[in-house]
Every structure is written in structure tokens, then in C-alpha cells.
């Protein structure tokens, strides 16, 4: 380490983080020269806990892996178990699963857009976008009973039906989001100061995205057309012609920077609106569960043997669950992988050569829920004098940079 460089650890914990983690930066002047990632501060050993639970109990455990992807994990887990045990899901349930998952995508992407604006210093945009998000939270509550942790997934189907009376209410929500598209586009994609702060910042090239196994909007913003809904359609997605959204669809070019990640997410919100619209117009009649009696279902699962993989395209990228059913009620192995896991490595090239003031937005750009940072310590390597940068100060640096650029 040269004398002019500093070590700056950022992290490790903040209550609003889904995965609290530490970033150890090495900084020379204003530029980041290297970064070391150290997650695991909140490793809850969920897979270990799953060893002592039966399959139905694990669904609720999986739901609590993430507060925002609380439809994605149970969806992937149920698919893995259905794959292992050979259980068929009724078509109506497949459509309801997709409706809930896409509503979740809308809420997650808008939540992310708000956080990104907050990191840049546009708090009015944060409030505006979270106000827009309330509508989808309301419809999720009407359909499932909960704003988060929907508790709607079950092996072999879903637990709640969508009634005829609820359909007009869903249509109202969809109309609301169709009307908001222009507003969101104006605020996020046409605003010159957002473009100034995000263009050519945190670039991830196509090759890096491919080599580092990036997933979700992070990969797509770099031009990798990877989307499970397109590559290996499942559930109701197989009936629709879904295409992975890349930034060139919007403005004809793919740069792989933070701006492109905003483009992908904003376009995906409206792709979700179209998917939900298709689903409610073509909702098949019939059962919503292949086996209504839980005790009977558990009996079948106890006898079942084999291994299965369940995949789902969550708002942040592919969620994959691997389940191996063996003797007894609990699975022999349950491996759950969240998208942020694969998007850890791409952070390294994204953060290299960036400025300290860009740390918040680059970290937030993969949507890890680590937009809010706790504290950062600056250690002078010569005098070992400690200077602590609080989260507020770091955010202030980011805001000041925005103001400077606007002048």
C-alpha cells in the first residue's frame, strides 16, 4: 500500500439491509483503487434451520429470506419441491403465482428507484416514487392479506384464489401504473442531473457480466440477455412472449453503467403491467391446489425421493433453489441462492476507479438493499489516526457532488 492510499471499511450492519455487509476500500485521493467484499455479518443459517423442518414449514421460512422478494423465494422453493416429487400445478394457480410475482416486481423496482434517488440527494423523488409504490402494496394486501410476506404459495398451487370482484380492482391498479409511466420516465430517464450522476459511472462491461455470472437487471443492463422468464419459461410465463429487456431497446445503446440499470428497471415495471394484464384477461378456471389437505400432501412428500431445481426470475435476478428429498420429513439438502449472491463479484469492476462520492449509488445500483450504509472509517496509514465517516457524511458527499454538477 502506498503512503497516499487509505483503507476505508464501509459496513457492516444496518437494519434496513437484506444482507448487511462490509466493503473494505483502498482509496488513493478521491479514487478507489481496490475493494474487498466481506458479507456474512447477518448469516442466519436458514438452510441449516431447514434441516429440522418439514417442507410446508420451509415455505414460510423461505418467504422470510428476504422481505422484498417474499414471493420469489417460496415460488422457487415450491417449484424445486414440485420438480423433485413430480407434482403438477393446476393452470389457475400458475397464473395467480405469476400475478403475485409481477406485482412484487413492480413494488421492488419502484422501491429501488426511490432509494437510488435518495442516494443522489433527491429526497422529493424518493417520496414521490414511494407514493406511487403504495398502490401496488394496497393491491397485494387486498389479494393476499399482507403487504409483505404474502403467505400465498403452497406446494402444488396457491392458498388464495382471485375472485371475480377483485379483477376490476387489479385493472384499476394497472391503469394507475400506465398513467405513471410518463412521470417516472420524465423524472428518472430525462432528468439531466440524474443522467450526469449516473452516465459512465459504475460500468460493468458485457464480458465482465458474463464472466462474473451476473444475474437480473445488472446483467441485462450490460447487454447479457439473461432472464429465466425468457430462457426457460415456466408457469404462465410460457404462454407469453417475454423478451429480456436491455437498455438498447430504449435508446439504442448499451453502456452497462448505472443509468442503464435504471433504464432496465423502469422498462421492466411496464413489462410487468403487461404480463399481469395478460394473466387477468386469460385467467383459467379450475382448482388452485393439487392437494388441499396438508397432512396428505406431507405424506406424499415424505414418500417422495429425488432431487429438484426451482428457478424464478425475482426482481433482482434469478433465484434458484435446489432440494433433495430423502428419508424423513425434512429435505436432505436445501440450497437457496439469492440474486445478490451472484452480483457480489460484479461490484469489484464496477467500483474500481470510481470516486468516493459515487460509492452509494454504485453499490445501490445492483439493488442489494445496501443502499443505506452504516458508517465508514478512514484510517490514515501513516499516523493510524482514525477518522470516522458516518453514513450521513457519506451521503452528504454524494449530495454535494450532485449540487456541484448542477451548477
Amino acid at each position, binding site marked *: 500500500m502506498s503512503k497516499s492510499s487509505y483503507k476505508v471499511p464501509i459496513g457492516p450492519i444496518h437494519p434496513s439491509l437484506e444482507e448487511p455487509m462490509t466493503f473494505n476500500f483502498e482509496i488513493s485521493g478521491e479514487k478507489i483503487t481496490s475493494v474487498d*467484499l466481506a458479507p456474512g455479518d447477518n448469516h442466519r443459517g436458514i438452510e*441449516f434451520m431447514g434441516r429440522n423442518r418439514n417442507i410446508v414449514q420451509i415455505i414460510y421460512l423461505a418467504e422470510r429470506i428476504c422481505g422484498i422478494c417474499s414471493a420469489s423465494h417460496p415460488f422457487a422453493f415450491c417449484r424445486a419441491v414440485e420438480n423433485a416429487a413430480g407434482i403438477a400445478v393446476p393452470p389457475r394457480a400458475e397464473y395467480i403465482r405469476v400475478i403475485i410475482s409481477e406485482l412484487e416486481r413492480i413494488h421492488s423496482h419502484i422501491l429501488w428507484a426511490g432509494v437510488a434517488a435518495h442516494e443522489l440527494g433527491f429526497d422529493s423523488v424518493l417520496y414521490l416514487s414511494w407514493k406511487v409504490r403504495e398502490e401496488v402494496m394496497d393491491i397485494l394486501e387486498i389479494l393476499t392479506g399482507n403487504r409483505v410476506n404474502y403467505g400465498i404459495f403452497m406446494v402444488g398451487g396457491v392458498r388464495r384464489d382471485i375472485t371475480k370482484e377483485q379483477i376490476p380492482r387489479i385493472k384499476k391498479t394497472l391503469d394507475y401504473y400506465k398513467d405513471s409511466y410518463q412521470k417516472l420516465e420524465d423524472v428518472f430517464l430525462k432528468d439531466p442531473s440524474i443522467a450526469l450522476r449516473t452516465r459512465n459511472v459504475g460500468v460493468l462491461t458485457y464480458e465482465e457480466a*458474463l464472466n462474473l455470472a451476473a444475474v437480473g437487471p445488472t446483467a441485462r443492463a450490460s447487454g447479457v440477455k439473461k432472464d429465466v422468464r425468457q430462457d426457460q419459461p415456466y408457469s404462465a410465463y410460457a404462454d407469453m412472449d417475454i423478451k429480456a429487456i436491455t437498455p438498447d431497446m430504449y435508446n439504442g445503446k448499451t453502456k452497462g453503467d448505472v443509468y442503464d440499470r435504471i433504464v432496465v428497471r423502469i422498462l421492466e415495471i411496464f413489462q410487468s403491467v403487461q404480463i399481469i394484464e395478460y394473466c387477468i384477461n386469460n385467467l383459467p378456471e379450475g382448482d388452485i391446489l393439487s392437494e388441499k389437505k396438508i397432512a396428505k400432501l406431507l405424506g406424499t412428500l415424505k414418500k417422495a425421493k429425488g432431487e429438484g*431445481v426451482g*428457478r424464478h426470475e425475482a426482481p433482482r435476478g*434469478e433465484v*434458484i433453489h435446489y432440494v433433495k428429498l430423502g428419508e424423513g420429513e425434512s429435505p436432505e439438502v436445501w440450497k437457496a441462492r439469492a440474486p445478490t449472491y*451472484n452480483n457480489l463479484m460484479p461490484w469489484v469492476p464496477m467500483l474500481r476507479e470510481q470516486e468516493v462520492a459515487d460509492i452509494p449509488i454504485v453499490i445501490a445500483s445492483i439493488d442489494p438493499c445496501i443502499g443505506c450504509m452504516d458508517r465508514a472509517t478512514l484510517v490514515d496509514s501513516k499516523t493510524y489516526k482514525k477518522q470516522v465517516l458516518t453514513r450521513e457524511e457519506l451521503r452528504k458527499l454524494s449530495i454535494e457532488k450532485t449540487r456541484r454538477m448542477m451548477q
Partner: protein
Amino acid sequence: MEYMNPKELLSFLKKNLKESIIDSRIETNKAGVKQEEFHNVWFEVKQEKFKETVQLLCSIHYPHIAIIAGIDTGESIDLTYLFSIYYGERFKEISVNIKVSLDRKNPSIESITDIIPGAQTTERETKEMLGVHFTGLPDMHNIFLPYDFPKDIFPFRKDQKGLDKLVQKES
């Protein structure tokens, strides 16, 4: 781009790896009103030929690694690598799930991080949770466990039942 179907893929691998491929199967799933098909290819490969298998996959299409799922059966440590190839086109993706069985006393396998750098996180996790040694993987700090976690305890092995021993060590 030319696509192999899963049968051709498996026979291509079998032609090159011969008896090293044990116990293979193609699982075909159907989805949607049109009942379109997608495939999962499962097979087990001998430990010494694993890296060659990944290189062969690379010669077809650069594989995306999702995760390594590991299990301690009591006699061996079985790793299942979840790969996928041909992503980017509708209904073209094939999931390739490769199982490798390792000796429990001295579990060791070649690292694939030189071919797929993105595999680093999952290899490091498998290393600290199951105690598998990856040759070629740089010796880095723990990723999910604390830095000062005892080096001879692997939490995801079947003989680890809880935290008792760890608490004792710390006090």
C-alpha cells in the same frame, strides 16, 4: 448459432469423457398451454474429469454458474454444480446439473475460477461450510463465517449439530 439438443449434448460429453460419466438422465418438463418443453440434464462425473467437463461445456457455450449445492452424506461429500447454457433465447436454455462425489476424509477438487471467475463466491462458501479444498482457489478470508472462526469446524457437515462447541471455544 447452432443449438445441440440435450441428447446430442449428452452424447457429445460421453464421447469425450467415456466411462467418467456415471448415471446420466435427461429430464423434460413442459410448461404453458402449448406444453412447450425445456430440459434439465443431470449426470455424475468422476472427480478427476470434472474440470475437463466444464471446459467441454465452455466449448459449446459459455456456461452460467448458479451455485454449488453440497451435501455431506456421512460417507462422501457430494457437490452438485448447477450450470446453464444457451441462455438468451426463448426455450433454448438447458440446465446442466453436474454431481461430483468427493472423499469425505480429504475432499478436494479443482477450482474452476480460472475458467469462470464468477464461481469464486460459491467455491469459497463451499470451502468454509463443508471443508472442501479447491486447488487453484486463492487462500482468502472467510466470506460468510467470521474471520476468526475455528478452521477445523465445518458447520454444514452432518456431525455438526449446533453452536455448543463453538461457544465453548470462544469462552
